[in-house]
């Protein structure tokens, strides 16, 4: 089990006191498994993703990533977990604008100290980035930028990949292509994939599907 979420609760301060966003969510993910997390806007799916990534803290419940309970970890330990075991792919790509594509791809693996040039080359080739390695991100199209982000995540060989609407900023054709490449590569590495999406067509391409509504899994 690469991910176990048990009865996780989270609320945020609002204009009229605490607003509960997650009211006790549980789910699990195996290695090599893909899971789509859907729900309307505000259903808490991104919040859940951030909690799993250790970017935020739960109010209640527990989250175990790669066999380690993260809810009580210090910020530094959670940062270390993000470096080595978890990869996050954002809707906004979040590339580092002042580094070349090649440096961006290598970045997380270098942080984790697991950089493998051959692996990075293979991923770049598979994602069709070989010709763009020396460019800066601003020179790439949105689809290419997201491919760079995917390559960056997978180069670090995470056990768990979290993706937050990774194709949300792309046109339909590009989105389908990028998604296809991503799924293929994730399967190849054997990582678990948890993807937040609002698109049913995207969700259908995943092995399992969880729908969040009103802070509950339905």
């Amino acid at each position, binding site marked *: 089990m690469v991910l176990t979420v048990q009865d996780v609760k989270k609320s945020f301060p609002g204009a009229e006191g605490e607003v509960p966003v997650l009211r006790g969510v549980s789910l699990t993910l195996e290695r090599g498994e893909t899971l789509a997390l859907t729900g309307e806007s505000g259903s808490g799916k991104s919040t859940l993703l951030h909690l799993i990534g250790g970017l935020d803290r739960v109010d209640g419940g527990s989250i175990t990533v790669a066999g380690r309970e993260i809810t009580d970890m210090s910020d530094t330990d959670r940062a270390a977990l993000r470096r080595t075991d978890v990869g996050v792919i954002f809707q906004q790509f979040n590339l580092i604008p*002042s*580094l070349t594509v090649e440096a961006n791809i290598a970045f997380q693996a270098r942080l984790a100290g697991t950089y493998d040039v051959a692996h990075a080359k293979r991923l770049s080739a598979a994602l069709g980035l070989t010709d763009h390695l020396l460019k800066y991100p601003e020179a790439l199209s949105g689809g290419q930028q997201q491919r760079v982000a995917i390559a960056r995540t997978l180069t670090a060989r995470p056990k768990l990949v979290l993706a937050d609407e990774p194709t949300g900023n792309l046109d339909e054709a590009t989105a389908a292509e990028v998604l296809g490449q991503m799924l293929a590569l994730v399967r190849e590495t054997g990582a678990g994939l948890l993807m937040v999406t609002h698109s049913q067509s995207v969700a259908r391409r995943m092995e399992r599907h969880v729908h969040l509504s009103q802070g509950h899994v339905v």
Partner: protein
Amino acid sequence: MTWVTLTALLSHWRCNRLQFFALVAGLALATALWSGVQAINAEARASYDAAAATLGEGQFDQLVPRSGDRIDQATYIALRRAGWQVSPVLEGRLRTNAGSVRLVGLEPLTAPGTIAPVGMSEDANLDDFLTRGVLFAAPDVADALGRTVAQRIITDPSIAPGVALTDIGVAQSLLDAEGRLSRLIVSPLQPMGLPPLEDIAPGLLRQPAQDAGADRLTDSFHLNLTAFGLLSFAVGIFIVHGTISLAFEQRRSMVRTLRALGVPLRTLIGLTVLELSLFALVAGGIGVALGYVIAAVLLPNVAATLQGLYGASVAGTLQLRPDWWLSGLAIAVLGTGLAASGALWAIARMPLLSSARPRAWAVASGVTARRLGALAVLLFLTGIGIAIWGQGLTLAFALLACLLIGAALILPLLLRSAVTLADRQARSAMWQWFWADTRQQVPGMSLALMALLLATAANVGVSTMVSSFRVTFVDFLDQRLAPELFIRIEDTAQSADLEAFLLTNASDVLPLLTVDTDVAGVPTELYGVRVGPTYRENWLFLDDTPDVWDRVEAGRAVVVSEQLARRAGLWTEDTVTLAPDLTLPIAAIVADYGNPLGQALIAEPLFRQLYPDVVPVSFGVRSDDPDRLRRTLTEEYGLPDAAITDQARIKAFSLEVFERTFTVTGALNVLTLAVAAFAILMSLLTLASIRVPQLAPAWALGLTRRRLGQLELLRAVVLALVTTVLAIPLGLMLAWVLLAYVNVEAFGWKLPIYLFPAHYAMLTVFALAAAALAALWPAIRLARTPPSDLLKVFANDR
């Protein structure tokens, strides 16, 4: 991990070289101004000391012969062997084919540290000075001297005009006075248990150190220059703050990405601090070097450092002393820390999750502007509180800080109000757009404009202070040094004879009768003066009534010093009791800088009536040819040279030293404005990228790019104008605090403030020119923006 993260952080600068340049340059300029001012301060102080030392004026008591004008060298040895720490001086006139030179022989090993007046350079060293014979000469006499004596001549501009300095032994042989001395300088530090002077050298008289008024004036001047240095640094810090905030703002998304990818917050902050410290050290180093250049360029003539010979370094030029450049670096690091602390705090607090979209660089949106305004008002109120109830130098500086920071903080609000006011008057759509757009620019340019505000205010303040200072000082010199020669004798029996001699040889003789007494409970020197044109024409008053001198001459009024008036709580037209049966109204108050005693002046006849036994021992002498009169007095009448003070020379030299300092201040003014202009340039350039989307709609609606460029330029000038107009009252307040408050706290007396409207007008023009110059390039760039870039705005619109 550390290295990878650092590379990512630093890569930002590779892509934003202009920003990097702005950061380093801003910091370097700030440090340069600071260290330049420090160096100038130190060197200027040294030249004042030199002036005091070469003029033999001074800070030290002296032993002079009771009669005649020479002391036997054996007396000196006897005093030394009795423990007296005295140092010999021989003075005399040396005839050259271009007139006579006043030769001063000193003994550098025993002279008190601050007096050693030897401009040591690579050309000379102690060995030369002691055993071979070297003369240090003022530039005006160096050539003539070189043709007269065999010794080597070194021209030293820090020596008073007409004077040459040399070793006592050389002086004895040149003046043909082997074994003879003129006077002995008494070191302020004497060993315990000294035998009395009368036992060892009954023929000598101890003359107390002379009035230190000028010293205190210059101390005050240095304090103010130091304040100016701090102010310059504050201007620089605004620039640094601006660039650092901008860089951090732009790196927000990167910081978030780094953290999402697993870089711990602590590592990130640590690396940022490391990065900034590195920049601060590099920029600080450049700044110190620049400051050195500034100081060296501004003060070419103070190369001769006048440290005591003993243990001090001998190199003649301005030096990069370790304490000096270390303090420069320290202030650079400190300043960066100050400027970056906010940004670092923001990083530490920044939530990982909220949108990673970079915000526009803005200090003051409407709400923030009002919030800053409120803070400013709070600071002003604190300042007023300090001004009313505060006491002490620290609080005086706190008052300055309140005033300046408050003014800077309230600037965005005032700018917004001014623009809104203009907006209401706008008739055409274009002007409405212009004003609305200007208001939008205020936040982005606030920091740069604050820098301009402080720079201009500092200039107004310092110019006012320095010029007021000059006016006061010149008046003071004119008044006190009006007689060309001043003679002081020790033997009262000689008084009448000397006066008679003087009356036949000089154009006017002003005997000074004086007694120490108590007036209104204040220890006071009461003077009897011979009222005449010298007093009527040269004396300026802080406050006076009609016909001051007529009333004084008639014995119907008295003139008192500011110190006496303030301490006794009296002012003009109040009456004061000078003697048991003499009560007179005060006709005028006169400034008497630096004198701890009070002063009161009455007419000579009245004084003689009151104190028939007092005989004048001091005479001011007016003469058209003071040099000749001096010769007549020493050669025909046999007066010792030390008894005659050449006041015209003192005045000329003091004024020249002052002129030098004023040149420096002027140059510093230009520099601070340049720094502020640089800040404006940098903020406009960095705003330029944000500007394109804002300007595209106006372009699409029919304004040409050329017109847009012109408007950009106009906008910068308008904002600068508002800022400058605000800066003038701020600068005057600054000057007021420095002169009327800081000075009073530091020295106990007030300097009158004089206004120089023409100068402020010129400063305004300079400031506007600086702003326009800074805005020129960005405006031209804007005017040349390719239409495709403007079109892209619409294409990319999300």
